[in-house]
């Protein structure tokens, strides 16, 4: 059994090491101004906080959707169990809310006469994309293509923690003496020097990259992280929450991360609740079969 455990530990090590390697060069997600949020969807009994998913969806619609598509999501998904519009007590109200929301957006189609017509979107329609194609997206964003958000939490090492840190990790004006957006003066325990942000790019310690090229200090202590084309988006009061929650930067980052976690893995609650049943079933089956084994072998010396 000892050897078996050692094998498992070794294999676990192998499985996890790529993720550990990829973290090199950026600020570890565990380090930041505030501790990482305690996500309600983590753990064996994890569930999404629906109010937070709702607020996160508001943030997505009002802020992120200007540049980031969610190509794999349809409006109907919003009303599915766990979704922001889901109301377990009133399925009809859920449906109506989804339909009403979808109606705000138009879609252009070619009708039977060959004419272009616009009609309001239906729950079965996909979310609209902000750009007609990737070339248009790149052209509008200085060559950078805003990533699609459908599975973004699964597509980044660190998942929701990463999104949260990236959103809140941009250096703030108060922290730095220089003019924001141009030169960042570092004078902490680790780094002393000036980081000049390239035109149209923004420094973020959690974004993978290399800052040494624009760093005038000791290259061994170049600030962790890299640059991305997205300027800081989330500030206190950036949205006006419909449910009256105070929209601090941390709150907005928490909500959008939670919404994106739901969007990436909408069946997660279903998965974990079924998992519990399966585990309990297998546990009792294992006990039964173990005693059958003992009973069958009781007269055999082995």
């Amino acid at each position, binding site marked *: 059994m000892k050897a*078996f455990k050692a*094998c498992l530990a*070794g*294999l676990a*090590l*192998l*499985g*996890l*090491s*790529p*993720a550990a*390697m*990829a973290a*090199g060069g950026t600020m570890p997600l565990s380090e930041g101004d505030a501790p990482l949020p305690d996500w309600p969807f983590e753990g*064996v009994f994890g569930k999404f906080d629906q109010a937070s998913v709702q607020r996160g969806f508001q943030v997505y619609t009002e802020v992120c959707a200007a540049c980031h598509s969610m*190509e*794999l999501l349809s409006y109907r*998904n919003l009303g599915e169990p766990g979704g922001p519009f889901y109301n377990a007590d009133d399925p009809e109200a859920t449906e109506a809310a989804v339909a009403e929301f979808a109606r705000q957006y138009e879609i252009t189609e070619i009708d039977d006469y060959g004419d272009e017509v616009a009609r309001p979107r239906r729950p079965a329609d996909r979310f609209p994309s902000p750009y007609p194609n990737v070339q248009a997206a790149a052209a509008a964003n200085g060559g950078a293509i805003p*990533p*699609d958000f*459908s*599975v973004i939490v*699964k*597509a*980044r*090492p660190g998942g929701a923690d990463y999104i949260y840190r990236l959103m809140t990790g941009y250096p703030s004006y108060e922290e730095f003496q220089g003019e924001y957006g141009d030169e960042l003066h570092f004078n902490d325990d680790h780094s002393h020097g000036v980081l000049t942000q390239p035109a149209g790019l923004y420094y973020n310690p959690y974004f*993978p990259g290399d800052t*040494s090229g624009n760093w005038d*200090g*000791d*290259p*061994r202590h170049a600030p962790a992280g890299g640059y991305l084309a997205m300027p800081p988006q989330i500030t206190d009061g950036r949205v006006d929450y419909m449910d009256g929650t105070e929209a601090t930067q941390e709150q907005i980052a928490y909500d959008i991360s939670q919404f994106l976690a739901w969007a*990436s893995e*909408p*069946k997660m609650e*279903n*998965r*974990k609740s*079924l*998992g*519990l049943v*399966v*585990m309990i079933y*297998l*546990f009792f*089956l*294992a006990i039964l*079969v*173990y005693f*059958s*084994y003992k009973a*069958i*072998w009781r007269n*055999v*010396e*082995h």
Partner: protein
Amino acid sequence: MSGHESTYKPGTGIEKWIDARLPIVRLVHDSFVGFPVAKNLNYWWTFGAILAVCLVTQIITGIVLAMHYVPHVDMAFASVERIMRDVEYGWLIRYIHANGASMFFLAVYIHMFRGLYYGSYKAPREISWILGVIIYLLMMGTAFMGYVLPWGQMSLHGASVITNLIGAIPLVGEQIKIWLQGAPSIGNATLNRFFSLHYLLPFMIAGVVILHIWAFHTTGNNNPTGVDVKDEKKDTVPFHPYYTVKDGFAIIVFLMIFAGFVFYAPNVLGHADNYIEGNPLKTPAHIVPEWYLLPFYAILRAITFDIGPIPAKLGGVIAMFGAIAVLFVLPWLDTSKVRSLRYRPLARQFFLGFVAVCLLLGVAGASNPDDIVIKTGEDTLRYEVALEEAPEAVAVAEAHHGKIVSSNSERVIVDFAHYEDAVEFAEASGTTAEATVKHHGLTWLPVAQLLTFLYFAYFLIIIPLLGLIERPKDEPESIADSIHKSNGSADAVAAE
């Protein structure tokens, strides 16, 4: 499918009728019911049955996934997510299939190490072993092609790295590569043929599994003592119910681990980059295969030097395939007559070392070859200065506590521990060279090279030599005898 006398007795008329025409019930009975199995098999032997469960699980979930999957570069990624979102329990089927591959390899590695430890590859079971290695090869091919199907970033660029390797083969390599890819580069043609082959290979695996079982049912199972069955009555029990229930218990425990991954950590064994749709124009920072192929990836990348007329790239490919090819000849490399390492204390130590080498090769495969494993000193700032532009560089460097690493008549390389010294040096010497950060320590590359050497040395040097120089302990007279001895007097008292 067995070498022992048939114990099947058709009871009813219809059974007799079938048995006289197609004795299939007799075949199944003699293979999986009455088949005599050594009674001392431990839990390491349950992985055969566990692997059968893995294969069946993969085939069933795979067939369902194929009903919903679209093998097209523009639609594959979205179709996989559609399975996750819109197919009834699609998320469950896909997560079982994706994690099932990892579970399959976990089980096959334990099964193979068990075969190595107890000498299951030795006469008369050579063909069982070789068929097993063929299954393992087919599994790797199947898993690799399956990983390409979701068409994420790792799928695409992993496939590109591996098929490009084939191009390293002299003369025909480029043609074979194009034939495999279906085009000069990875694209829709590649995805289509990989999908087709990914569906085909598991059935080939199933076929070879039947041969594998046939072979070791002809010779009989090996057992932890490695001693042959002498007396079927004393040494063996029928497969059913004795081993069906023991394997059944092990399968359920294994399924609990499996379910733990599927329900609570379905993506932990994968790579986040594979949830980004494949883009041929954007290469991920680190291309790594799935964990179960990492040791071979480490061996591939360890050969960075030309060996005589063989260029480094081809050398890496030869080493990687050689690492598996050596398993085929293992039965004839081993000179020891004793099967089980229970009675070979020296060989046991080397075996444990070999297991450690394999695990470390996996870690090496996941790591960047230039990353430091063991740090030997603080990072320094290194200048490489052309003497033509800064003739006084050596003297200036020494004045500013620089450490001359090397110098000749044209240039000097100098290291600085302190940033201030380096800045003053750059100003005083007038050089335009930029400082680079020099890490000091042992990188993964030589470690991977050493591990690769040890991997091959185990098979090609240690195993042949051990059999000649080692003095094994006495093997028990028979299986029944070994059980008697190990149970000792406590059981003897209980028996009275």
